[in-house]
């Protein structure tokens, strides 16, 4: 308990650093681009249009017939998945890329994976403007359950942070992890039911998909936003459980190894 309080005090002291690092990331990401932060909105929008064209126009059979409001369905899945992919990928290399800093001054090292996850999250929140735009454009109904979407979103944040901490630790010791993760997330994308209705898949695929936590976050989010239904008990449990487990494991692994980092950077 005492160590937890100590941890929190340390964090509180460095909250401005967290803020400054996030704002640095935004500045550098959009420096010298004319549209700037608008890309956070435009990018998912354009991507969604591409996918819509492919799975709505070219291969409509692939996605399954009875999806209500396909553009929104796509966009929800895509935004959440991109958040997960972006934040974990950035968090993974964050400790490595900040090696010059870590080798020279003392700062709590978890601040870097945390910062990248926050950056991904803020970026994702900007992207929700795209979602609102598409909802307006397609005249979709706004359900009372909309605020419930916060739950899958926040638990996904915690889950991503946990995964990011583990990846960041592994990357310090083995750079291979970066390449493997890229392939892995691509595979994961196809098993996250982003552009198809899992109900129309064969039985084993349906079962298999259920082992993918990302599927649960996306489905929970969609239920609140599109279907106007509350979250089912299993959704609440799986989303929350995975998040807590990932974070606990991530903190454990990170804390155990962080003193060795500087020797390998």
């Amino acid at each position: 308990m005492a160590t937890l309080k100590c941890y929190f005090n340390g964090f509180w002291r460095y909250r401005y650093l967290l803020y400054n690092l996030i704002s640095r990331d935004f500045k550098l990401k959009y420096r010298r681009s004319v549209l700037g932060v608008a890309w956070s909105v435009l990018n998912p929008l354009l991507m969604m249009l591409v996918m819509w064209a492919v799975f709505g126009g070219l291969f409509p059979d692939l996605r399954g017939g009875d999806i209500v409001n396909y553009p929104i369905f796509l966009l929800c899945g895509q935004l959440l998945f991109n958040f997960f992919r972006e934040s974990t990928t950035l968090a993974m290399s964050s400790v490595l890329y900040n090696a010059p800093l870590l080798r020279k001054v003392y700062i709590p090292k978890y601040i870097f994976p945390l910062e990248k996850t926050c950056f991904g999250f803020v970026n994702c929140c900007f992207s929700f403007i795209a979602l609102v735009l598409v909802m307006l454009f397609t005249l979709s109904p706004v359900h009372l359950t909309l605020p419930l979407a916060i739950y899958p979103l926040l638990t996904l944040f915690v889950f991503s942070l946990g995964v990011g901490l583990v990846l960041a630790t592994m990357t310090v010791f083995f750079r291979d992890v970066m390449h493997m993760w890229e392939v892995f997330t691509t595979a994961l994308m196809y098993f996250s039911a982003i552009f198809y209705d899992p109900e129309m898949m064969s039985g084993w695929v349906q079962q298999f998909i259920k082992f993918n936590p990302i599927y649960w976050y996306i489905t929970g989010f969609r239920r609140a936003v599109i279907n106007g239904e509350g979250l089912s008990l299993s959704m609440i449990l799986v989303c929350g459980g995975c998040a807590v487990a990932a974070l606990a494991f991530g903190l454990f692994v990170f804390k155990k190894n962080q003193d060795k980092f500087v020797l390998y950077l």
Partner: protein
Amino acid sequence: MENNQPIISVDHVSMRFNLSKEKHESLKEYFLALAKGRLQFDEFYALRDVSLKVMPGDFYGLIGLNGSGKSTLLKVISGVYKPSSGTCRVGGTIAPLIELGAGFDMDLTARENIYLNGTVLGFTPKYIDSKFEEIVEFSELRDFLDVPLKNYSSGMVARIAFAIATITKPDILIADEILSVGDFLFQQKCEARMQRLMSGGTTVLLVSHSIEQIERMCNKVAWIEKGRVKMDGPAAEVCAAYKQTTK
């Protein structure tokens, strides 16, 4: 006011590094090494059984040849490295000036970097706001405030870094060869500022290859050779001995 508790006490500290060529940067290398049964790393001790005590108010100098372990010792003290064995206890806030420009992002402007680096050192933005003028004044780089740092010369970077790190009155100031970058005017300015901090009660730990500077500024000196403390004590004695052997 003077108490007898050392503000920094380094107690039998050793620092072991795995030599770079034995680092396994990819899984394949790792498993190859594992298969060949030589996963034991080549070990290298940058510090061996170092013990030092620095009293509050000391102006402590560290001297030694290149690669003797001075910077490593400073990093152990400032908490960047955790010693492989031994303990290091520090009783106060540290302003680290180890390799200037740590915490700077070369793509950002000086203005942005002042805020970023300030928060790296644990200051609040409000505090930096209030000291901003002073920093700019001290570094004399007002005309370059909105230029990305990558277009600065190394001396200019050093000026900004020194100005930021010394805006508070830290309990301990750790300076690793920073004075060697700036021009002589700036060096004088830095020295004056260090002296001023000193008279305000700050303990200073200084590494420099300029032995006459150490003699002039420090009251105590430790001479480090190949990771061991070869000699420590009053500045004049140690410097004299050091000059004897390196002549």
